[in-house]
């Protein structure tokens, strides 16, 4: 309903951020794997106030059929925001921003998947942002990666994603909505951390090349931390399954 106001300061006298974090501190992140009944794989993330669900269907038959590829699976990806996920109600029709994000998220995950193992099929990835408080593209990639793993899709590595940026002249990691909106720059990246391979790289705002290098390194470090949390979440899931099997 309301337009958020720009806070007076994005970094306070103690060098802390609007939500009390240190510059290099991620928001609290909680991953859950296997949260939806019908999907072949699914996961949920809460990262600060950002809440996202990801579901994977496939490999399955492609409709319409002429989209099928003879030598590999087609990865399809829809990034979509719930109308109630943002301050002003968003129309459920896909916006241009959602279409671009669907593309870059897909291209951030494709390098990790052994698509050639499932020719003539599609792997359909659906991402629903239930609450958007900044960093949704990175959180989407991280959680989608878990949903793919949960669906048993063979991958070279998990893909972890994290942004770094500049707010009030200071480089920080994992920007929230206010920092993203009123900050000076945002550099979201995604990585197959184990392979040192950057699969998403975008930037808006302005950074000189030196700042950019520092921000990039901070984002890489953020990805490393998220990567560990992803692995932890998968372990937990498997532990639960093992428990249930042993019952």
């Amino acid at each position, binding site marked *: 309903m309301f337009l958020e106001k720009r806070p007076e300061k994005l970094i306070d006298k103690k060098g802390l951020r609007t939500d009390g974090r240190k510059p290099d501190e991620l928001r609290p992140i909680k991953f859950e794997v296997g949260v939806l*009944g*019908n999907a072949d794989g699914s996961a949920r993330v809460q990262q600060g106030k950002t809440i996202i669900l990801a579901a994977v269907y496939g490999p399955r038959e492609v409709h319409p059929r002429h989209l099928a590829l003879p030598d590999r699976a087609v990865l399809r990806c829809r990034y979509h925001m719930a109308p109630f996920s943002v301050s002003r109600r968003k129309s459920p029709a896909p916006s241009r921003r959602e279409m671009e994000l669907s593309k870059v998220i897909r291209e951030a995950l494709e390098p990790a998947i052994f698509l050639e193992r499932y020719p003539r099929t599609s792997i359909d990835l*659906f991402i629903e942002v239930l609450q958007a408080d900044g960093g949704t593209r990175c959180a989407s990639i991280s959680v989608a990666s878990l949903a793919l793993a949960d669906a048993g899709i063979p991958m070279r590595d998990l893909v972890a994603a994290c942004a770094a940026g500049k707010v009030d002249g200071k480089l920080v990691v994992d920007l929230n909505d206010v920092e993203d909106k009123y900050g000076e720059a945002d550099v979201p990246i995604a990585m197959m951390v184990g392979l040192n391979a950057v699969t998403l790289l975008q930037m808006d705002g302005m950074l000189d090349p030196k700042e950019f290098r520092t921000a990039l390194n901070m984002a890489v470090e953020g990805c490393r931390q998220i990567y560990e949390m992803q692995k932890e979440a998968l372990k937990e899931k498997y532990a639960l399954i093992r428990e249930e099997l042993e019952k």
Partner: protein
Amino acid sequence: MRTLIANIKRKKLVQLISEGKRSDGRDLMEYRPIVIERGIIEKAEGSARVKLGETEVAVGVKIEVERPFEDTPDQGILTVNAELVPLASPTFEPGPPDENAIELARVVDRGIRSAEAIDLKELCIIPGEKVFTVFVDIYVLNHDGNLIDASAMCALAALLDTKMFGYEVKGGEVVIKEDERHPLPIKNHPVSITFAKLGDELVVDPSLEEEQLMDVRLTMTVEDSGKICAIQKGGSGFLTLEEIDKALSVVVDKAEEIRKLVVG
């Protein structure tokens, strides 16, 4: 072949139900476990999540200032929308709402509207000029049958969770007071009860399997004083007058039972 298998399944299910049993062990008039959580989305004015067995629905309520309709210049606007997002079922496709999503939204809308659950006159700011619009967005997250009841419960829970902002009118402009909050004026609590007809029997709260094999679906919505405020028959079968009567004879009590869970 597909049809053949479906027919065999259907016969077994009808047989089981004729003995008063269901494949998941429930009684014919028993709902699946219901879990209701309010306030799941901070950025929405109101929100809730309902799990009805494995069916899962989220509802977010947003409030905006808009121009009233010409024929109701002194009333706020209620808009109910449902999205069958494709992560909820292998049969849901991305794209604009199809007839199932539209029917779902309209049946939930009809219950709220007929019961006058929201006092729309209270949502008028400047008659003919500015009123509050209440957007109720139903988001189906997992489809395991009986989306109507789960959505109706979730919509009611989300409306009960909704906080309005105070405002004043200054020179024709609406100024919102962000520190003044009060609940949405809710006057009634419509609850829908959905039956599936399988053979000669009615069951409540059909599972997805039951929905796929049922002849016909019947939803009755009941308001606080026990009046019926919406009915919708769905599916390609028919009902006898006796069957309608049977549904009618249990629906008020059943609705009261569910209402207690939702209103708390």
